[in-house]
Structures are given as C-alpha cells and as structure tokens.
C-alpha cells in the first residue's frame, strides 16, 4: 500500500502560510525581548487562557499525537485513562495546592524551587538531569518529524553540497531546525507558547473532519462497538484483573501507577509544562492555567485516540490495510494518522491536517528548547559558571543557549537515526525520572521538616530503584535489552504498560521512604522563616476576597473534576 500523499499546490500553500506566520510571530515579538525575564519567563505577563492552552499543547507534540492514536488501535478505550485519571487529578492538585508555592516563591524554574526549598545539590542534580532530558527529547522529536515528512511529503531531493550528501531526511531536519531556531531566538518562551496555542487550534480544526468522516463511514459509536473487540470499549470495567483488558493492567496499577505516580510526577514537576503556568500574569491566572488546560484536555482523546480505534475497526472490516512495520508482520500503528489523512482528506483540508502534524512536531522541539534555555541559563550558567553578571549578559546567554540547544538536538536526531534502540530506551527512562521527583515535592511542600540531604538521596535512590526494577523485569514476550531485564529476570509483566506503571510505583515508593527516613535522621537546616512561601503550613492561605465565588480557581476545579467523573462513568 502506498503511503505517500499527492499534495496539491493549495496544500503546499497552506503549509507555507503556517511557516510564514510562525516566523512572523517571532519577528513581531523580538522588540519586546528587552531582558532575561521577557525572554526566558515570557515576562510573567500572559493571560490564563493562553498559558492554559500552551500547558496542554506542550504535551501534545507529534510524538504524543501519533503515539496516542497508536495506543487507541492497540488498547482501544483504555487509552482514555491518559486523559482522564492520568491527567485531571494531577492538574487540579497542581492548580489548587502547588501553584501557590511555584508562583508565589518567585522561583524561575523547578530546579530553582528545589534550591530555595532544599539545597544546592538537589537543584544541581535536577537541573543537569532535566537539561539533558530536554535536548534529547527535542532531538527525538526532530528525528521523528524528518522521518515522517520524507515518507508522506516526498520531494525527491538529492543534493550534493560541498561533498555532503543531502537527502530528504536531512532537508526536512534542517528546515524544521532553522524555523524553530529563528522563532525561538527572536521571541524566546513567548514565541514557544504562542506557537503552542496556534498548534492547539490547528490540531482541533485539522483532526475534527477526520474523526467526523471516519465515524460516519463506520456507523458512529455503535459501528465502532460492533467492529472492535468488547474489551477495547471500556476504560474501568475490565480492570478487575490484568488479563481481562488489552492493556494488561489491573485497576490498582492504573490508579496508583498512572493516575497517581506517573501523572502527578509529570504534570506537577516537569518544568516543560509547569513553565507555562509560571509565565502567567498573576497568581490567579497561574492557578487557573492547569484548570483551563484541563477542559480541552478531556476532549482530546476524541481527536487523537478515536482515530486509532476507527483505523483498527476499518481494518477489522477488511476495509483498510494498516501498513506493516519494516521487515516484520506486525502492524505499524504509528502510521494510522497519516493513513487516515490520506484516506479521507481531499486536497485543501489535507494541507490543514498535515500542517497540524508539522506544527505539533515543531512545538515538541520548541517546548523542550524553551525549557532547556531557562534551566541552563538560570540554574547552570548563572549558578555554576558565571554568577553576578548583568541581566543583559544573561539575556545574551539565553539567546546563545537556544542556538546550542538546537545544535545538540540536531546531533541527537542523527544519533537517533543510527541507533533506534538507544532512543526507545532513553524515552523509557525519561518516563521514570519524574516519579522520585514527585516524592521530593510531596514531602517538601507539605512537611516542613523534610531536609535537603533527604530530598537529594531520595531522588538518587528512587532513580536507582527505577533502573533496578526495569532491569529485572520484562513484558511478556520481550527479550532482555531495551525492554528491560538487563540485570536478571525476576518478574514478567503482562504488558509493557504494566511494567512502566510498576517501575514508576517502585521508584516513587523508594524515594518517599528514603526521604522520610533520612529526614528523621538529619538535622533541619532551613529555618521556618526561610521556608515561608515554600511549605504549605508556613505559607499564608490565599484569600481571593476581591473576586466572586464563581471566579475562584476552586470553583473551576470543582467543574473540571465533575466533568472528568461524568466522562469516566459514560465511558466506563
């Protein structure tokens, strides 16, 4: 089956118009980038709806879009867990309980909060780990974009420049890198956030027709139900035992592993998303950011998971051939979005769909680069390399960090091209690093006694626990190596998903216990006065007396929570 598109002039024009606007936004923002705060923190001046949409868009890179559609085809409705229990409780918790410390402490990054709350070594550990993670993620995103683009938009490029062979892969890699570089150097974090908002609307408008026509063809939700196995049409109902559902996890693994550890770890401590909330213009806007993001978040599964389910249903009906992975008989579910775009979209809307996909790849890069900039400039350069320089100096460093970040990403993309397995492995590792960090935050924010030594060794111990657990377990049918089991084989999980959830649970529990025990054994160094604004019990409660009850974050949180519960019951 052919997987290339016949793009019309209009499709190319639409893609081109998008690129012009992306660069134009950077150009229009350049004159506002007067200090490092404007460049690296978006001046802390954005309205809540902008930061809210950017908050979820930063997690809606193309790797997620394609991955979630693939999960939809593999696990069916179980994938909805990532949008309901796997996101909403954490977003509410961040908004109500954690944002007051993040925003109120005036910390400019997550590592800086760790420095204020704990100590230098905890900050250093997190800053370096995070910086490495973001450039690698950005590179992986770049690699995936070039890989997909050369398949679906072949340009037949075969250039020879100064003895270097430039093919389509290289061409798309360079084009995307240059565009991201230009708009990030010009407009900094604001550019990244604005483009994430643009990308969000493009995804909605680009994918909605796909879902609409797909559901029409298959006969609506009932048609989906008729053509998919029963166990793919539930979220909670079949989680009584791990064998009954396609994901291979029981309810405890879902609720504790995904709903608590992974989700809270990601949404509340990953600076990539938290940075968006910190760029808001006021405390109230910062607290509303995750809540405003949560509303469209709950609609996203219908745009990105349902296409995967439609593709599988069509394939079960013998009406669609899903391409196989190169050199194997396994269906390549990562291709379902391109395949459906090709099936349903005529010239015109096809351009919009592809633009949405391109936009999400580029914002996947830009989001990571913008978080890398801030952490490198403030937490590594200003802290360890050259402190006490003028703000103008740090603005310049921030700009150069963008250039360096993009260059490292390009190198990473080529590494990913040569060593596919290494990248799969790294992505797996990145999924666990936030679990121990969440333990440090939970104890640090709500127990004033928690010490810096305890947090630091808890982080190290939790990270080691994740590596050890992963190294002694395997999913069913997996071979030792990238999938785990590189130390020994002690336990076999029914699925990769189950293995991931339990790795996170072990990492978090180890970090929590270690931090608790070491805190008891060590002396509290920071005084209550120093911890004011950083710890729950020592911070005056926010009293929004000047706004109506229905304008308060708590009211919005209640609505978000209620909708999440209703959706969970409907799709039980």
């Amino acid at each position: 089956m052919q997987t290339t598109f016949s793009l019309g002039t209009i499709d190319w024009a639409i893609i081109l118009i998008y690129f012009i606007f992306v660069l134009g936004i950077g150009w229009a923002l350049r004159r506002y980038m007067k200090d490092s705060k404007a460049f690296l923190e978006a001046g802390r001046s954005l309205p809540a709806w902008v930061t809210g949409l950017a908050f979820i868009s930063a997690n809606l890179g193309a790797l997620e879009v394609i991955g979630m559609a693939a999960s939809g085809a593999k696990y069916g409705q179980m994938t909805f867990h990532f949008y309901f229990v796997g996101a909403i409780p954490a977003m509410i918790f961040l908004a109500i309980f954690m944002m007051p410390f993040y925003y109120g402490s005036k910390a400019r990054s997550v590592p800086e909060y760790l420095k204020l709350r704990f100590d230098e070594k905890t900050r250093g550990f997190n800053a370096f780990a995070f910086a490495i993670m973001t450039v690698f993620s950005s590179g992986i995103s770049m690699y995936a974009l070039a890989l997909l683009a050369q398949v679906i938009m072949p340009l037949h490029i075969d250039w020879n420049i100064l003895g270097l062979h430039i093919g389509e892969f290289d061409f798309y890699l360079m084009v995307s890198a240059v565009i991201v570089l230009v708009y990030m150097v010009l407009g900094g974090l604001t550019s990244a956030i604005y483009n994430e908002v643009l990308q969000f609307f493009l995804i909605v408008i680009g994918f909605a027709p796909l879902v609409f026509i797909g559901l029409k063809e298959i006969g609506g939700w009932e048609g989906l139900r008729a053509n998919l196995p029963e166990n793919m049409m539930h979220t909670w109902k079949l989680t009584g035992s791990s064998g009954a559902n396609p994901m291979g996890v029981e309810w405890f693994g879902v609720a504790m592993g995904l709903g608590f550890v992974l989700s809270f770890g990601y949404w509340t401590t990953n600076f990539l998303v938290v940075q968006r909330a910190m760029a808001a213009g006021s405390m109230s806007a910062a607290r509303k950011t995750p809540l405003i993001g949560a509303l469209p978040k709950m609609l996203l599964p219908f745009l990105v998971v349902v296409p995967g389910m439609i593709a599988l249903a069509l394939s079960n009906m013998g009406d669609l051939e899903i391409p196989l992975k190169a050199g194997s008989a396994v269906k390549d579910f990562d291709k379902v979005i391109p395949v459906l775009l090709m099936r349903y979209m005529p010239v015109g809307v096809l351009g919009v769909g592809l633009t949405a996909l391109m936009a999400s790849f580029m914002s996947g890069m830009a989001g990571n680069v913008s978080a890398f900039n801030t952490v490198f400039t403030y937490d590594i350069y200003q802290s360890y390399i050259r402190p006490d320089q003028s703000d103008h100096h740090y603005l310049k460093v921030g700009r150069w960090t963008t250039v360096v970040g993009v260059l490292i990403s390009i190198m990473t993309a080529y590494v990913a091209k040569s060593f596919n397995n290494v990248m799969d492995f790294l992505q797996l590792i990145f999924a666990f690093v936030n679990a121990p960090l969440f333990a440090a935050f939970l104890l640090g924010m709500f127990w004033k006694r928690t010490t810096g030594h305890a947090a630091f060794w808890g982080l190290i111990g939790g990270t080691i626990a994740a590596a050890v657990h992963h190294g002694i377990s395997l999913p069913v049918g997996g071979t030792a190596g990238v999938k785990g089991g590189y130390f020994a084989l002690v336990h076999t999980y029914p699925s990769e998903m189950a293995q991931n959830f339990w790795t996170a649970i072990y990492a978090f529990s180890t970090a929590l216990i270690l931090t608790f025990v070491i805190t008891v054994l060590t002396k509290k160094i920071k005084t209550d006065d120093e911890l004011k604004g950083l710890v729950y019990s020592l911070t005056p409660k926010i009293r929004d007396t000047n706004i109506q009850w229905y304008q308060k974050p708590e009211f919005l949180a209640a609505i978000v929570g209620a909708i999440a519960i209703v959706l969970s019951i409907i799709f039980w």
Partner: protein
Amino acid sequence: MGLDIKIPIGLMFSLLGLILTILGLVTNGDTALYEQSLGYNINLISGVVMLLFGLFMLLTSTLFRKKKEEE
C-alpha cells in the same frame, strides 16, 4: 506581552479559511474529488468554520478594542 496572540491566530485562520472556502465553492459538486470524504464538501465546511473562528479572534483582539476606544 506586547503582541496579542489573537491577532496572528485570527489573521492566519481567516486567511486559511478564506482559501478553503473559495476552494470549496469552486469545487462544489465535484463528486470525484469528494468521493474520499464520503460526499461531504469538507473544504467548504472546514473553510467556513476556520473563517468564522479567525474573524471571531480578530474581533475580540486588542486590534479591534483599541479602535473602539478611539472612536
């Protein structure tokens, strides 16, 4: 930040919406083209939605608010 995000969003979606609407009108009734979208003139539908969204963004942006204040 000095630039209201609604302006570029509004401009881009109005422009793309206009292109798709015109394309949809020109190709209206072209059954061969819209066979793959099950007979729906999806360009026209998407185009009108994008155009309306783009105009809504522009009308609620600072671009329009400032003009109103000056009057």
